């Protein structure tokens, strides 16, 4: 109940800021551009594909690669959304409103997180509309589409949790944005480092930690509970850290 109140306030404030709208617009624009490019390429080879047995369809050749590109865009965009969550309240001193109200720290953090998640859901639901427009002239692999969309959602939710934590550390939104971007990029690149070292087993930890590894499984249509658990753990971990951080601020000597 309280969480819901906080979340709807957060969502409302997001939609009252030009930042959220421009992010929606920019992502949608880039997405449309990427999508058109891929679709163009697909149409050129469509004739040859029709001769192949078990040829990859439009979902596999157009939607999935575009979704993979969107993941990179989300990596850039989500820190901009999360940066103000707590740092801005700290800077404008409105945090005391929440702290002196009968709310627990977990409610405050969860409320803010769910509010942002609501926005992310809007963003991702918009991304679903374009593939659906292809339904008029063909069929889609809905299982694959769902899996890829779920991958994007989990990835964005994980980005948001890390960004929220970074925002709880500072009172400067830009600082929160750049540090969360750095952190996310590092976690993303773990995968590359793991690939470079080779496959003697010693690098598997890094590869396992990478946000990308788990994402790649899901986007190929493999819904593995281990991957989903990884994201849930990632999110929970950063939310708990944020709660502790906010609580520690009250106590710290």
């Amino acid at each position, binding site marked *: 109940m*309280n969480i819901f*109140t*906080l979340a709807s*306030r957060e969502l*409302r*404030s997001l939609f*009252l*800021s030009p930042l959220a709208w421009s992010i929606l617009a920019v992502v949608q624009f880039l997405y449309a551009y990427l999508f058109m490019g891929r679709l163009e390429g697909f149409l050129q080879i469509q004739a040859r594909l029709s001769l192949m047995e078990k040829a990859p369809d439009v979902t596999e050749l157009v939607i999935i690669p575009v979704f993979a590109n969107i993941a990179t865009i989300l990596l850039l965009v989500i820190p901009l959304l999360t940066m103000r969550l707590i740092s801005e309240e700290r800077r*404008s*001193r*409105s*945090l*005391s*409103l*929440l*702290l*002196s*109200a*009968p*709310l*627990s720290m977990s409610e405050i953090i969860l409320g803010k997180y769910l509010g942002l998640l609501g926005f992310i859901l809007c963003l991702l639901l918009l991304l679903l509309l374009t593939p659906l427009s292809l339904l008029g002239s063909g069929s889609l692999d809905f299982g694959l589409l769902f899996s890829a969309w779920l991958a994007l959602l989990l990835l964005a939710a994980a980005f948001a949790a890390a960004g929220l934590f970074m925002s709880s550390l500072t009172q400067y939104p830009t600082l929160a944005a750049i540090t969360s971007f750095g952190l996310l990029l590092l976690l993303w690149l773990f995968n590359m480092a793991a690939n470079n070292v080779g496959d003697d087993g010693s690098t598997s930890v890094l590869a396992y930690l990478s946000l990308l590894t788990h994402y790649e499984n899901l986007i190929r249509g493999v819904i593995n509970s281990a991957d989903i658990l990884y994201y849930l753990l990632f999110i929970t971990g950063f939310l708990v850290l944020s709660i502790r951080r906010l609580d520690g601020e*009250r*106590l710290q*000597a």
Partner: protein
Amino acid sequence: MSEYLLQATQLSRRFNHHTAVDNISFQVQRGQVMGFLGPNGAGKSTTMNMLSGNLAPSQGQITIAGYDLLDEPRLAKATLGYLAENPPLYRELTVYEYLQFCARINQIPRTKIASAMQMAMDRCGLHSVTHRLIGNLSKGYQQRVGIAQAIIHLPAVVILDEPTVGLDPIQIREIRSLIRELGQDHAVILSTHILPEVQATCDQVQIINQGKLVFRDSIQGLEHRLQHNSLYVAFHQPPALDALQDLAGVESCESLGNGQFRVHYKEATSPAEQLVARSVAQNWRLYELRPEQASLEDVFMDLTHNEVVESET
């Protein structure tokens, strides 16, 4: 249950090696407005932050309406309204949206939210700005929205940290009368460094300096302290200094130039009456006579040189 709505017991707060608040205890009753005075950096805001649950005390206990703020924060905070030094506002919301949000997070039952908002807007005179964005309001209105936020759930204890800073004189008068009104059925703590504000609104006064409570008394007690045992007089035809010195009870006299004098006298032997009589008789043409009051700074200076007053619980 005692009528003490707020009790602070041996409260201390340290930041690294610096002790901001050092072992202070006090209590506020229902129907009381307690003025909390102190120079800048004395520990006022730290104390307010502790009382409102924004900062955990290093030591000590805070009880609000019978609930311990640390053990039962939810119950304690539900009976607490707090306006910080900078009003905690969301500038992108309208007054209506903001107050609705405040009503909800303060756990007002859904059916009573509308009437609670009406009450808060009535009391703070916000009806003309209900649907305007908070960010576009003047400082005075923003302050009022801040106060409305603090009283919307009719808390037993209202804590206001410098509520009149940056307001114009008319707004200050309105806010002060609002505070007095609140004091009738809540316990109010008002932090300020403006002496007339305390005199206009408070029943009880306590002064904090360097983290310690140095003075605690009723407002009459403070006013007594402020009596300086000196008179300021001015004449159009000033007499010689000796003529004033000769009056009964006068300890010393100093000339301030231009026919103005300061007359110091012994406790409870004001020479005012004599002075007027003598002036008429000898045609000194007295045109101003007023008892002098110490400024708050004088009281601070005076108090900080004395021993720390132990609270008389």
